[in-house]
């Protein structure tokens, strides 16, 4: 008997598996993907924006932009971060423990690597859809409408992966779902708040700002902001993207190693 290569790469077969499960939920999902950022825009952008813009001196801190325009790329990127993180916690534990779908996958000719890469491709799809939805919401406002939103979506997806892959690696060995609440509360939410999405890091104490700079979120936000505000410096863009890439690649490698150990133990 010969072991012939699959016609489609394994990762894409795993993607199909995700898509089938998603078919039942996508409608509610797309709705909340559009509605949530729209609400954030109205609340934080327009509401708080009015307070910020009426305060003399704020516009210098924001580099001359209105507050809404400043926040917009932040929303784009944080949405992808939150989704990439969330979808790499409970669903991964579920695949290993509850529904045990991953065990079903490796019973076929697919491998743990396919599961990890398939999850990555799946996250590209999900984060892409969600950030595109945010971009659509942002395009509804004159102040935030810009062609820079398109590269912004791409950057968001890259950031989404930079969270999804390392968190997947974490989830493989997580003992109970309580630790996910901790990731949510000690990683995702603090980054959402302190990661440079809602104000420049210069507002923060230097130590906190440096921690924020070490995370992929901030790099994504400032890069996306360069595009939406039309202040692109290509060398900086490449540097930021490469830094985010370290998290993506590192996370993928660790996730694959752990997944292999877990599934073949």
């Amino acid at each position, binding site marked *: 008997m010969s072991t012939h290569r699959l016609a489609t790469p394994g990762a894409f077969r795993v993607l199909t598996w995700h898509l089938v499960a998603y078919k039942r939920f996508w409608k509610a999902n797309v709705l909340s993907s559009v509605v949530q950022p729209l609400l954030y825009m109205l609340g934080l952008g327009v509401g708080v924006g009015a307070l910020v813009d009426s305060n003399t001196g704020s516009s210098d801190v924001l580099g001359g932009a209105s507050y809404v325009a400043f926040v917009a790329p932040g929303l784009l990127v944080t949405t992808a971060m939150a989704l990439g993180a969330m979808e790499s916690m409970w669903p991964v534990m579920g695949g290993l423990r509850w529904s045990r779908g991953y065990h079903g996958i490796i019973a076929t000719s697919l491998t743990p690597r396919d599961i990890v890469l398939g999850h990555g491709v799946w996250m590209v799809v999900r984060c892409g859809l969600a950030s595109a939805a945010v971009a659509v919401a942002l395009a509804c406002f004159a102040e935030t409408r810009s062609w820079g939103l398109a590269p912004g979506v791409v950057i968001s997806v890259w950031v989404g992966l930079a969270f999804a892959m390392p968190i997947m690696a974490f989830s493989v060995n997580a003992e*109970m779902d309580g630790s996910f609440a901790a990731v949510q*509360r000690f990683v995702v939410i603090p980054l959402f708040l302190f990661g440079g999405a809602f104000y420049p890091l210069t507002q923060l104490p230097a130590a906190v700002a440096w921690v924020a700079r070490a995370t992929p979120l901030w790099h994504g936000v400032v890069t996306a902001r360069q595009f939406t505000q039309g202040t692109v410096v290509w060398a900086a863009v490449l540097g930021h993207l490469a830094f985010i890439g370290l998290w993506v690649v590192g996370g993928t490698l660790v996730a694959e190693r752990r997944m292999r150990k877990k599934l073949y133990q």
Partner: protein
Amino acid sequence: MSGLLFRIAPPVMAVRRPHRMIERHLLAYRHQWLIIVSGFFEPLFYLLSMRAGLGDLVGTVRFGGAEVPYDQFVAPALMASSAMNGAIFDSTGNVLGRLKYFRLYDAALATPMTPADVAVGEIGWALLRGQLYAVSFLAVMWGMGLIGSPWVILALPACALIGFTFAAIGFAGTTFMRGWQDMDIVNTALMPLFLFSATFFPTSSYGKWEWVVQLSPLYHGVALVRAANSGVWTAGIIGHVAVLLGLALIALAIAARRLDHLLRK
């Protein structure tokens, strides 16, 4: 005497052992204390972020005829929101799991416990946990010099009322849920409440839409906590309390009835 009581209130509605439910949760959370502790940090992070990041940008907010620093404006609102969030999460996701997936209530009802014991016990637990957070948040506010008046101590019962209202609403809503996918609805519903309850900017920012804010139950809670912290009491307080209490009682009646219907088929 007890015979008469039976005829007035059906025995399934009898509340005798709600504290047993709380005892069970105390035991269960001994394994998951991290979840309890982490719940405190979420509002704290929001407060720190608003203070450090947005405080400078916004400057002061006109509230109650005075210019109030932004962090002092936001802090009571965050306290009220976290009372809401805590109560909702305890009474939706956790209750749904216990009701449908872990069948904790089925087990409890095979003992002398009644559906009303379960409902009151769950809401009581949500309240207790909420008070724990409220007290610690108050301590943080004090440490950051955000306390405006000694009346602020009344923010604790105010948070208990907010917790009670939202726990009852959450519990009632959960009895209608089909499964985990409906938790999306909860998250989507919470966000506008969080953003548009005069939390991050005063009602005056809404212009002619100011009346819409009145529809949010959280707004009434925020108003109570703010009144406590500013020490300025107006007749409107009675209205805010009445709204929250009225909603709570309606939701509680629905919750007990639905739970009985679900568990005693």
